[in-house]
């Protein structure tokens, strides 16, 4: 599992620094041996310890009336009413996916699903934000195909619908694709498995159930996820875990039956750092130590060393804390689902993790020293100057219709049907709105409620201004939830950045956090957890700083969900919000002008809040027929998408002092295109005026044509074809 040469001291080969070795000596009062060093290396890895990000993450707002469980547990939870908790979290599996796209993406799905299950919740939806390099490159096509097949191959086999996500493309993600996955689960609020509600006692047993433990994924967190990917990284393939979705499905059903039967005192999945992490966190959280007997761990192959058993990231395993009186019932439930169980540890007073193998003590370390006492760094930061000339005022005399077609064919904007048709979006039978909607909506069984979910992150904005990148990610994801008529409740995030040891990257990270913080406060959407993915760089070149935000909202009545597309002819089309001279960082500038430069759109969070509140209120009052967020490609692309998705054309007029291309394609924030039945226009106008949201009547829906007076005159059919064919064409599947 070494990254460095054999002449290096062991701790460095494990990825530990010299001063970290000193900290370990202090914690133990002696030198660590090899097994102990491997445990610290895993637990103090960037991936597990958040040692570079922690001081920044602490500044995020985490509390609010709806928050039941905030950061620090396997997943966050919010109260959605009627005694129901929605549990959700997002994670990254970018590093393994860069090496082995199918298994990397597949095991990412498996890992986040187990996080949700370990809270006692049934997983009900998955969303996958993905970023790749341009599809003109063969390797990027291979990565896209592998990642999408892996997500489908795993998600489709466990019966959890994949209802949404994002797929974006940019050159800096060529060597380092970004693969994030969000899972949402539902539980009875009084049945959540949290440290607060479930208190183990000394003598309680730790029961490992699910798959056996093998040599796969050893060093996953320290070798793969906490270092940059360089030439020859294929050599780290053994650090990529291998997934078995069938075992995962059994694990889900068995775990939920254990929770339902009130048979557990605690439940934790085995993910990064394997058994070491699960046992030390479970023990430390309950204030105990544990005696861990490695001979009891069912192994996939003989002769595994202690450090291998302790840090293996073999998939589809869970660790339950069980009172001895309930052990037999726990075994019976697991046997029903064909899963093996093994009592591997006993909780003991004292706080030490006391590890034995073949009659020998192989490690004895304070559990807390692995978890809460991991190092925390305040890494140096250096700001990066703003990026190039703003394209907003550059003259443009091209054809606006051609520009619109180019934008609809841009892979960021184009239809992602090729991707989402490989995902089962229907299983469980609750998907009201699936992929391709602004936000996905799934019903909460047994109620009229809907959960609305969106994931957003715009690396273009993040690269030009990481503060705005963070703030826009929150605002856009929340806006996407709001335009379905739902109320955004809370967020989870996945923060994808380069090497934190570089001051410029650390500055980008801290700026993005500051932006997210301001937006979360303004929109009343606290952070309930998330994940940081550093070291996404190769050869000194990092990915765009890409904070991805997942927003969970609730709809009181899912039947009042607003579609994105124009649902019928004869509706009035309105633009809510105000348009400014903002073309910096836009999709138009990237696709048509060929530059990613300038300042991203400004974001007035009070204005954003008013827009979102207005759309929710109007939707709740059944005033709107559709609503669609304006983002990539501005109002012209938003109108085209409304027509394509709804199958009805439009004739509108865009007025203003801005140059036509800025008017059509500028990406000013806090705007939405809505359609309204004529008899409700008065009410909408009145409400918008009362709520202080600027509005403009653009025209009407209907007919086969898409007309922006004086600028664009084409057919919905043509726009649909351009939009639908773009990605299959890039993949060589249509000519």
């Amino acid at each position, binding site marked *: 599992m070494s990254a460095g040469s054999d002449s290096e001291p062991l701790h460095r080969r494990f990825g530990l620094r010299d001063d970290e070795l000193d900290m370990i000596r202090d914690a133990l009062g002696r030198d660590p041996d090899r097994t102990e060093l491997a445990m610290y290396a895993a637990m103090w890895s960037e991936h597990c310890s958040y040692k570079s990000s922690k001081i920044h993450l602490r500044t995020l707002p985490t509390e609010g009336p709806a928050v039941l469980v905030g950061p620090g547990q396997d997943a966050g939870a919010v109260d959605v009413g009627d005694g129901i908790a929605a549990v959700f979290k997002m994670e990254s599996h970018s590093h393994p996916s860069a090496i082995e796209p199918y298994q990397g993406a597949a095991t990412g799905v498996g890992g986040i699903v187990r996080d949700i299950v370990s809270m006692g919740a049934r997983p009900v939806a998955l969303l996958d934000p993905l970023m790749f390099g341009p599809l003109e490159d063969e390797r990027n096509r291979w990565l896209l195909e592998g990642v999408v*097949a892996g997500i*489908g*191959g795993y998600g*489709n*086999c*466990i*019966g959890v619908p994949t209802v949404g996500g994002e797929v974006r493309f940019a050159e800096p993600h060529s060597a380092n694709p970004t693969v994030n996955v969000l899972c949402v689960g539902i539980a009875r609020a009084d049945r959540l498995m949290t440290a607060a509600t479930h208190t183990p006692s000394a003598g309680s047993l730790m029961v490992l159930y699910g798959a056996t433990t093998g040599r796969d994924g050893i060093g996953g967190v320290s070798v793969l996820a906490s270092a940059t990917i360089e030439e020859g990284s294929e050599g780290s393939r053994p650090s990529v875990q291998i997934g*078995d*979705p*069938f*075992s995962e*499905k*059994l694990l889900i059903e068995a775990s939920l039956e254990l929770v339902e039967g009130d048979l557990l005192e605690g439940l934790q999945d085995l993910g990064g750092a394997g058994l070491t992490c699960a046992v030390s966190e479970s023990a430390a959280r309950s204030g105990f130590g544990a005696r861990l007997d490695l001979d009891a761990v069912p192994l996939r192959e003989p002769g595994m060393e202690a450090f291998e058993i302790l840090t293996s990231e073999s998939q589809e395993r869970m660790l339950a804390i069980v009172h001895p009186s309930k052990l037999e019932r726990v075994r019976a439930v697991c046997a029903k*689902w*064909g899963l093996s169980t093994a009592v591997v540890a006993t909780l003991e007073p004292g706080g030490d993790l006391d590890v034995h193998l073949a009659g020998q003590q192989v490690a004895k370390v304070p559990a807390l020293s692995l978890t809460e006492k991991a190092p925390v760094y305040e890494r140096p930061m250096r700001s990066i100057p703003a990026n190039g000339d703003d394209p907003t005022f550059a003259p443009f005399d091209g054809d606006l219709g051609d520009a619109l077609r180019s934008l609809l064919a841009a892979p960021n904007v184009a239809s992602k049907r090729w991707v*989402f*048709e*490989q*995902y*089962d*979006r*229907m*299983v*469980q*039978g*609750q*998907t*009201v709105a699936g992929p391709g909607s602004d936000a996905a909506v799934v*019903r909460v069984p047994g109620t009229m409620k809907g959960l609305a979910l969106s994931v957003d992150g715009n690396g273009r904005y993040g690269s030009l201004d990481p503060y705005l990148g963070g703030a826009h990610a929150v605002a856009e994801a929340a806006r996407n939830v709001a335009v379905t008529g739902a109320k955004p409740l809370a967020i989870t995030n996945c923060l994808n950045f380069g090497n934190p040891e570089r001051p410029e990257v650390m500055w980008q990270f801290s700026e993005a956090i500051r932006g997210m913080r301001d937006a979360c406060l303004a929109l009343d959407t606290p952070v309930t957890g998330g994940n940081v993915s550093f070291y996404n760089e190769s050869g000194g070149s990092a990915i765009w700083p890409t904070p991805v935000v997942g927003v969970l909202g609730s709809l009181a009545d*899912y*039947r009042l969900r607003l579609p994105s597309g124009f649902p019928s002819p004869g509706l009035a089309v309105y633009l809510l919000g105000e348009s400014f001279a903002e073309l910096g960082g836009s999709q138009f500038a990237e696709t048509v002008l060929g530059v990613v430069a300038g300042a991203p759109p400004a974001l007035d969070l009070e204005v954003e809040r008013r827009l979102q509140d207005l759309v929710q209120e109007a939707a709740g009052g059944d005033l709107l027929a559709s609503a669609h967020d304006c983002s990539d490609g501005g109002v012209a692309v938003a109108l085209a998408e409304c027509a394509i998705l709804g199958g009805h054309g439009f004739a509108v007029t865009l007025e203003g002092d801005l140059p036509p291309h800025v008017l059509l394609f500028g990406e000013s924030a806090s705007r939405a295109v809505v359609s309204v039945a004529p008899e409700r226009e008065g009410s909408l106008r009145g409400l918008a005026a009362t709520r202080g949201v600027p509005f403009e009547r653009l025209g009407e829906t209907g007919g086969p044509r898409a007309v922006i007076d004086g600028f664009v005159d084409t057919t919905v059919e043509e726009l649909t074809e351009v939009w639908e064919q773009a990605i299959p064409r890039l993949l060589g599947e249509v000519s």
Partner: protein
Amino acid sequence: MSARIGVVTFPGSLDDRDAIRAVELMGGQGVPLWHADPELHGVDGVILPGGFSYGDYLRCGAIARFAPVMEEIRGFAARGGPVLGICNGFQILCESGLLPGALIRNRSLRFVCRIVSLRVETTQTPITADVPPGEILEIPIKHGEGQFVAGEADLDRLEDEGMVVFRYCGPDGEVSEDHNPNGALRGIAGIRNEAGNVVGLMPHPEHAVDPDVGPTGGQALFASLLSHVMATAR
């Protein structure tokens, strides 16, 4: 008194709850059956649901056919009891020899989840008895191994004896390669046995009964099954 339809849960079944919900939404009573329990609990009909039974290792449906409940289902089918296999359930019926042919990897080599149009080819089954032949139903598919194949002689026999129940088609009922989502031979989406009581199809009618979450092409099929069961049970 409503029709009691058993839905088998194998390890790895995924659409079992969905099938029960569909039965109940259409006025029947869904009865969960367990793969290891060799007992049908007096149900009037059986559904083998979609999913990945036993992980679909070896071949899709190849292990499920040895489940204890399958012995009972074979007897139930031999006595004329209605058995409906959906997706993985269809694969299990083929592997069990209750239906001819086999289902192999989609021609695209990719999983596909999409709403398709199906043309109803025969009324000689419990689920199509009340559906006019030629009717076009909108129903989703979601599978990676749904390409129906059989030898030419078997295919001819299926055609000649009216055992093709559904074909993939366009919006106006036209059967062509353009509307064939998986490369199935002769556009076959579902078939029946000689007696007509055993039906397998790749599309998912249980995901096409609730208008709030999808199309409604499955309603007619469940309605037909339930009324058929009630008529023969009396």
